[in-house]
């Protein structure tokens, strides 16, 4: 099963280097609550990779459903709220790509990019092929995580996660925010995790937030689950200062946070972008800054982000590129 791609011409082609969300504001990077108000107010970005990524998502969900989608029973109302939020947004922001017709509780949602039309009864699970979050996540490039806010804490209540940077929704489901962040070094022990939790608990509807997170991935692989580490992990050993330009990719997560006022939960979206270092070279300022950030990066961060093995090779590659 693969998605229809004949409508690729409907999405404007813009070179990756012109639209890549470069994450570094300074020559140094440390953990901080770097969230800032999301000026656009919207969740979904449609990029030229739409067809390829939706196809990939749906294949993962078909072949490894439990790996990429998890939910707890009490998240269903929250999931319907997420579906409503996204359908309304898509129809308003991208009328050329999506539409919705609401006849009371009978809704018809159309995805014009994929030539798909679904009619269902809002609130009635039996009228959808999948749970609401699992359904709507198959129409956007973003991964979608729903955190329930209950009794003063946030819980991982549901999530569709196809492109994780080495974390597992199947492992994290049901955990509190503090529990699922406990592996992050320094962030957790320094008290920053608690500060960020306090910030998240007070996010208001109508005032969404955004932050960029980053890591490195060898080869342009979006689905780096812990569950398939054997497929992508060993590739790290191949990196040399000669091939780093083609193999190593800067991986940036455009993360956004929205309060869902009905359930009082938080919707967390992640849009993952990959760019090879050879491609990044087209913007020399970015390459220079990335070089300085890497030189300054503490070992515990390279270790946690999973590239300490080939950090030296990248630095040699960058040194060479910048002196050429």
């Amino acid at each position, binding site marked *: 099963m693969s998605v229809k791609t004949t409508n690729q011409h409907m999405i404007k082609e813009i070179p990756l280097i012109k639209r890549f969300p470069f994450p570094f504001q300074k020559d140094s990077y440390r953990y901080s609550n770097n969230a800032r108000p999301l000026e656009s107010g919207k969740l979904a970005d449609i990029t030229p990779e739409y067809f390829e990524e939706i196809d990939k998502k749906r294949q993962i969900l078909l072949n490894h459903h439990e790996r990429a989608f998890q939910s707890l029973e*009490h998240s269903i109302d929250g999931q319907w709220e997420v579906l409503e939020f996204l359908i309304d947004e898509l129809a308003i922001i991208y009328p050329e790509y999506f539409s919705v017709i609401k006849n009371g509780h009978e809704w018809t949602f159309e995805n014009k990019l994929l030539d798909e039309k679904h009619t269902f009864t809002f609130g009635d699970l039996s009228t959808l092929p999948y749970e609401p979050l699992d359904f709507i996540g198959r129409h956007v490039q973003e991964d979608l995580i729903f955190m329930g806010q209950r*009794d003063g804490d946030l819980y991982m209540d549901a999530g569709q996660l196809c492109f994780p940077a080495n974390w597992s929704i199947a492992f994290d489901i049901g955990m509190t925010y503090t529990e699922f962040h406990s592996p992050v070094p320094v962030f957790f022990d320094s008290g920053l995790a608690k500060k960020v939790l306090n910030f998240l608990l*007070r996010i*208001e*509807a*109508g*005032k969404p937030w955004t932050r960029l997170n980053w890591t490195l991935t060898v080869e342009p692989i979006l689905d780096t689950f812990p569950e398939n580490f054997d497929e992508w992990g060993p590739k790290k050993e191949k990196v040399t200062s000669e091939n780093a330009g083609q193999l190593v990719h800067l991986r940036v997560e455009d993360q956004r946070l929205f309060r869902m*006022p009905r359930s*009082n939960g938080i919707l967390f979206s992640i849009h993952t972008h990959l760019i090879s270092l050879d491609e990044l070279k087209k913007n020399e300022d970015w390459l220079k800054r990335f070089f300085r950030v890497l030189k300054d990066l503490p070992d515990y961060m390279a270790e946690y982000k999973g590239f300490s093995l080939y950090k030296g090779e990248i630095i040699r590659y960058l040194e060479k590129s910048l002196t050429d």
Partner: protein
Amino acid sequence: MMARTLEVIVEQITHETAAIKSFKLVSADRSPLPRFSGGSHITTYLQTETGLIERHYSLTSDPDNTGYYRIAVRRNEDSNGGSIYWHDHVKEGDKISISYPKNYFPLSFQAKRHLFFAAGIGITPFLSMAKELKKKKAPFEIHYAAPSKELCAFYRHLSTFFSEETHFYFSKENKKMSTKLMENQPIGTHVYFCGPEAMIKGFADAAKVIGYSEKSIHFELFTPPKSGPMQPFRVKLNKSNKVIEVPEGKSLLDTLLQLHIDVPYSCKIGGCGSCQLHVLKGEIDHRDFFLTEMEKKESNVILTCVSRAKSGSLVLDL
């Protein structure tokens, strides 16, 4: 960045009692309004001749009703003008800006049973909570004190839709809403209070004595707590090295905002925690109802809207 607002039209004004009016608000462009969770409120922004008035009112309509919101406002002669403006100047057809729904008074998820205690206009947040619980078929009781049936807002509404769950206590009939109602309740019962500060304090203290844990006690205030004189004090901003004098009678938050220092805030009555700032040095006189006893003891954060320095000065991480 200020949060986005919703534009609404006052479609209908209803006299609930002699002192309480309710306002039905519909979206100005007729698009659906956001759903909300039980206990939510909105901030209303009224443009008046003397400036912008920001007030918070509980939403009393059904949480799933995207067609309109309803709020109820009691005319309060002692207020700073918000309720009087709503009563005397707002007309049907007027356009008003409101915030998205916010909830600082959510239902507990782990509670097995919910007991609500309301005095007067304090009934308002419980109306949407009751609707939500009824849909989920979760057990709850409403205990509601008012002067008389005539002065009891939403009497008919409650008697019609929640007759089983609601108990009225009219002082003119010499009926008193006693804290004893909280005794001998099954494990997993949570208690919620809304009304004047003295009523909330009385019930919260009694609940603690009865043995309710801090996590099982919930309340919402409508006005800032009265907790002593607002003495002047000094704050030092660590990052910018500025020194600021907070004058007598004025809050730290208002002082910072007036100096165009962009700090977060929302409820302004020490209830939501939005204005929390980190304190590096100094003794804090905590006057909020948000931080836990533990957090107050740790003494490294301050809610700038109500709390002050105990003596001398504070150093803020700003």
